[in-house]
């Protein structure tokens, strides 16, 4: 084996807190440890800051003093697998769920799922919306909608949408209800990524649409889930957000 892989292995082990590799030289050899600490610190701080940028509400909820060591621990157990740090953190919700000191706050994982999904929606591919006229003349019995790649439906065990909304800058105090919530996340035409909590009817309708069913099947599913559900409301909201990208018969 050539020496460089050994060097990288040893250097990385030291970054993780192991003994310093041999052969390090500093102007004053008593300062080697301090100088190596610059690299340790850069790795730990930069990853922790990347995670904070990705999960700002989690940081707000647990507080910065708790978040920083939490992020460092997460970074050590689930290091990024790509230099594209916006994609890092898929495992953070599961990590929070299994982290004993946070056992009393089971909703945190669901909030992290919302934040991760918002990042995916923010960076999702572009796709232009269909012209609204297409829907006006469409036959609901036959038409199927394709939604924008940013559209994500999350079924959550906790009222995490309300918690997320309360922790937005200037966030409205949405009433906290107990029990599960379904979150609809999408990127609208102004590149905003709102998070909405869906009622049973809207939720069934969205699942049907995303599952490739026709509009009338989706409206029927919504009716079954919620009496007197009006499918027009969701349809108009999707259209206004510009996330209906195909309507095919």
């Amino acid at each position, binding site marked *: 084996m*050539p*020496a*460089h*892989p050994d*060097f*990288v*292995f040893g*250097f*990385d082990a030291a*970054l993780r807190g192991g003994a310093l590799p*041999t*052969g*390090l*030289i*500093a*102007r*004053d050899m*008593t*300062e*080697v440890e*301090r*100088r*190596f600490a*610059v*690299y340790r610190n*850069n*790795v730990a701080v*930069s*990853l922790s800051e*990347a995670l904070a940028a990705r999960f700002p509400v989690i940081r707000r909820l647990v507080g910065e003093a708790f978040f920083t060591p939490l992020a460092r621990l997460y970074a050590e157990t689930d*290091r*990024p*697998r*790509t*230099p*594209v*740090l*916006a994609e890092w953190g898929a495992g953070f919700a599961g990590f929070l769920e299994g982290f004993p000191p946070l056992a009393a706050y089971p909703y945190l994982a669901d909030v992290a799922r919302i934040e991760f999904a918002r990042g995916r929606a*923010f*960076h*999702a*591919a*572009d*796709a232009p919306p269909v012209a609204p006229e297409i829907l006006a003349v469409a036959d609901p019995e036959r038409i199927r909608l394709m939604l924008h*790649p*940013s559209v994500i439906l999350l079924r959550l065990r906790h009222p995490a949408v309300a918690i997320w909304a309360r922790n937005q800058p200037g966030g409205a105090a949405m009433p906290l209800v107990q029990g599960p919530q379904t979150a609809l996340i999408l*990127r609208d035409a102004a*590149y905003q990524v709102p998070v909405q909590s869906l009622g049973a009817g809207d939720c069934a309708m969205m699942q049907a649409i995303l599952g490739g069913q026709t509009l009338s099947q989706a409206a029927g599913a919504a009716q079954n889930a919620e009496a007197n559900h009006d499918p027009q409301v969701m349809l108009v909201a999707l259209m206004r957000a510009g996330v209906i990208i195909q309507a095919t018969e």
Partner: protein
Amino acid sequence: MLPALAGVGFKPDHFAAIRKDAADVGFFEIHAENYMGEGGLPHAQLAAIRSDYPLSIHGVGLSIGGARGLDADHLERLRRLCDRYEPDSFSEHLAWSSHGAEYLNDLLPLPYTGETLGLVCDHVDHVQSVLRRRMLLENPATYLCFAQSTIPETEFLAEVARRTGCGLLLDVNNVFVSCTNHGTNSRDWLAAIPLHLVGEIHLGGHDTEELPSGPLLIDSHGAAVADPVWSLYAEVVSRIGPLPTLVEWDNNLPDWPVLLAEAARAGAILAARGAGLARAS
């Protein structure tokens, strides 16, 4: 080729101010890894910037100084990004940032040996063949040296450029940081580097920590450019004429006018010190 003017790193926070003022900036530089998502606001902003200004794409994640071959998926994403925006320059670092599949998000140092020289040249060749363009390789800011190093940093960089045909990105702040940290002289370093290979200059800020043996400088990209770095920069420009010069300010991001003023300071040096030496283009 980038124009021999002062440019700045593009930050989304500054987008509105840049557009409002139709800012007089020689070029913008972005970190490639921030634009590897598929779409959305980052690409909408970058496309708008690209249509009005020359663009430099600067990678921070290729791990050119790493032990194994480059991450083929990441290189492919970089190729798509370059195809999409056709930047006037692409640059990366003489450093490693990944170990195996794990990304460490720092520019880590490597010993300069015959073995690492061969590896770095292979990696630069690989990048240039996939991107089908010449890249610039940036000198690192370092805090430690290695007993196993057998090649001076300047010679190492020059030899990579000679073997691969790549150019150099001269980070003057990194020169000052490394030389101060190692007790060597920045002017000696700059006298030893083949300046004709330099295609772009970086200027950034650093932090200072006082150790018993003297100051330990830490490359932070979070402050104004220090006076000794401005002096070294002016000397370089006086020697070789104007070069595309980037003011890097990535952390503790200042308001747009502050960053613009820092770039204007570089622009004034380019105009005053490089005027008599402007290269024929």
